[in-house]
């Protein structure tokens, strides 16, 4: 698979072998069976057509009859986005499946700027209805029942809910305050030798899922050296890396010092990256985007063509107009303001946790995002404590078990979100939590004694 070649010209200093990926190996039979919709393809004829062409192939309703004619959005900074009638038609009519063209163009520029993917010419980018829908379609494209899947543990519950119905064979990889441990990844894959599995299609792991920044639920980020090690291991074992990165813009610290994304080091063209606007612009409008090797992004596109058709057009137009109004400077000014907000929230949360929980819990300080991952060393399992008793103490968190690949095992962890709670309530919540834990410790002892 790897062929010796002159040193890669992409600017990467990590590897010199140029890999030619065989993508069909990663696809389920259902995904391979997907065909382009002829009708959607035929709309491409319009692009080359003469002005005399009478196009009666599409099933477009007549947008003249849609009741919204124009609109206006006022931003919090006082400026307005005007949706004039032509733009309103773009908002209301069917849109191309890959995304509203001006937005796709803007997102490609942004991605190139932020990540400079080494094999950009072989990649594509499409807009999705939230990054999770992109992730869901990517997993549905590659995972068949009982397949292996390599994933960080603890793992985002949304990803587990996509995967669990397949009854996959999880290869969970644990981490620490710096995220997924490369040694643990090697150990999870140690059952196989790389050369045995690189080209195999069945009964081998082929997909690795990772949240590199401000991981949900642990709140920690992978430093650059670990990313490089993980990439190398994925390359050795020929895994597709699913880089799920919704907190990219809410990492704390100077943007110039952000660790490199997996996409930016993707010399093999094996990364599918999921980006989101849900934390910085709006979660409800459902706009995200996926970047990856053309053959794989095409499969996701074909699935979208037969399901939701495209991400909501008005939402895409709004994001596009906003990015246009702001320009690059305005956009980064906004993301920095969002980052500063979450940093303040984190600091308030740390203050509350240190005040009330320092003798009861352990944690790593979140380096971005909105989650604090608490370990309660003296409690065997937080599940019952939270689901059965937390309400009486007026505090609710998520028990750690929800984030485990094997939900039958006990977990001493719990996740607290600090995105929308005030500093006063953080203090109150941590105080209530301390009481809850102390009572649980007593209960545990009592139950232990009565055995």
């Amino acid at each position, binding site marked *: 698979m790897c062929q010796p070649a002159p040193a890669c010209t992409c600017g990467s200093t990590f590897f010199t072998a140029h890999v030619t990926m065989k993508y069909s190996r990663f696809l389920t*039979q*259902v995904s391979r069976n997907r065909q382009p919709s*002829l*009708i959607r393809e035929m709309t491409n*004829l319009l692009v080359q057509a*003469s002005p005399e062409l*009478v*196009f*009666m192939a*599409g*099933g*477009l*309703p007549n947008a003249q*009859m849609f*009741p*919204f004619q124009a*609109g*206006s*959005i006022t931003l*919090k900074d006082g400026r307005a986005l005007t949706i004039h009638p032509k733009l309103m038609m773009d*908002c*209301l009519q*069917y*849109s191309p499946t890959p995304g509203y063209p001006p937005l796709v163009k803007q997102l490609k520029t942004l991605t190139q700027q932020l990540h400079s993917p080494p094999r950009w010419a072989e990649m594509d980018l499409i807009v999705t*209805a*939230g990054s*999770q829908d992109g992730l869901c379609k990517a997993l549905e494209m590659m995972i068949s029942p009982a397949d292996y899947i390599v994933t960080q543990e603890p793992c985002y*519950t*949304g990803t587990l*809910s996509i995967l*669990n*119905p397949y009854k996959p064979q999880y290869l969970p990889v644990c981490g620490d305050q710096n995220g997924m441990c490369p040694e643990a990844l090697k150990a999870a894959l140690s059952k196989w030798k790389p050369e045995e599995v690189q080209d195999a299609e069945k009964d081998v792991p082929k997909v690795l899922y990772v949240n590199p920044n401000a991981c949900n639920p642990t709140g920690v980020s992978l430093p650059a050296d670990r990313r490089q090690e993980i990439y190398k291991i994925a390359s050795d074992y020929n895994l597709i890396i699913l880089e799920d990165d919704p907190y990219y813009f809410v990492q704390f610290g100077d943007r110039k010092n952000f660790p490199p994304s997996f996409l930016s080091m993707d010399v093999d063209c094996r990364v599918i990256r999921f980006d989101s606007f*849900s934390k910085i*612009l*709006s*979660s*409800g*409008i*459902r706009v995200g985007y996926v970047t990856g090797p053309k053959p794989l992004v095409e499969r996701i596109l074909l699935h979208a063509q037969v*399901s*939701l*058709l495209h991400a*909501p057009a*008005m939402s895409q137009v*709004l994001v596009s107009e906003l990015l246009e109004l702001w320009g690059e400077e305005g956009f980064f000014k*906004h993301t920095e303001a*969002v980052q500063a*907000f*979450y940093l303040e*929230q984190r600091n308030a949360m740390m203050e509350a946790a240190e005040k009330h929980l320092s003798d009861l819990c352990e944690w790593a300080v979140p380096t971005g995002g*909105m989650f604090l991952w608490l370990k309660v060393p003296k409690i065997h399992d937080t599940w019952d404590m939270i*689901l059965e008793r*937390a*309400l009486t103490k*007026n505090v*609710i968190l*998520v*028990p750690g078990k*929800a984030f485990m690949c094997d939900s039958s095992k006990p977990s001493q962890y719990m996740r607290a979100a600090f995105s929308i*709670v005030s500093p006063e309530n953080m203090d109150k919540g941590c105080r209530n939590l301390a009481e809850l834990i102390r009572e649980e410790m007593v209960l545990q002892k009592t139950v232990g004694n009565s055995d």
Partner: protein
Amino acid sequence: MFSWFYYLSGRTHVSITLLWMNYSRFISKQSSRRKPSCISELRRALENGSPSLVWLASGMPSPEKFPFREMTVTLEGGKQLTLSKEALSTGLQYGPSQGYPLLRKQLKRMVEQWHSPPRWAESDLLVTVGNQDGVSKALDMLLDPEDFIVVPDPCYSDFLCMALYLVPNSCNPTGTNMSEERRQEIYAIAQQYDLIILEDDPYFFLQFNEKQLTSFLSMDVDGRVLRFDSFSKVISSGLRIGCVTGAPPLLQGITLHMQASCICPPMLSQVLIHELLTFWGDEGFKKHISDICQFYKDRRDAMIQALETHLNGICEWIVPEGGIFVWLKVLHLNDTSAMLLERAAKGDVVLVPGREFMVDSTKPCPYMRAAYSCATPEEMMKGMENLAKLIQKEIELQSTHK
């Protein structure tokens, strides 16, 4: 099981046996393994929680940092609707996977009004990301690999891929409506074979005849119908909002898949549609539908005129009673694909070859589908003139090859 005589308003007495369906047999293995997220379970705690409850559970981003402050839309006629702060805020944040509650309430009222489903008390409704996503998720829920599904032939091409799928009104691509008698017969057959009926009805509001045909939902005494409605032809296709109505055990699988994929249907789209429906009220909505029907009826008439002017003796067709398509059969050609895909663009007219809609797309097909939704009457006349020339050329080409 219970039997009694049930009087359906305006129709004769019929004898109905009330069936308690065993829904689990229809659910695919994969779908049956979907579970609600822990966080949605925790959310129930919110309902029972005291006002002092400190909620640290959900990963909702803070709306304080969303940059949008106010939104106004101008409707046809110039009326402006400004979203309240609360409505905009709702539109910008994650919402329930089942749909924006206020919109669901409105849609339930509409479905009840239009269909009077016999087992309405046992039915539910979800908002979907366009009705096609609803159908896609329903099929994912019902079909294990290699399961059988009954579909009409020709059939809307993006779906070919225990269940009976049909488009009773202005079927895409044929434009035909299923008659009353056939609907009753088909329902009876579905009962006999215990099939789920997927009633896909995106052209429900685009029917040109006054008399509304009976929907499968409105005759659904068993609770075996999943009905998919769409706003794509009447309010907006781009906002991606539709809905599905049916028995809760069937909707559950769709909801859980939605939770794992899009998380929720687009909230801003739902809020806008809710505001619009509230502003219109029942009368406003009926007027809008009436205007739309007249618009498409005029287009249909122009299309038929263009066909009669240029394609008599060359093609056959059935006059559509609703929707936006006419299904043409070319009398002296075996197959339209090569003509339409390779030569039509140069001939300045493009239609969709009929083969695209057949379950077996390898067989030749002399049909083609024309949409009359967007072309002007002048363009239609020109288009049909071009089409006639194109077909003549194709017939000559074929006899040359022979």
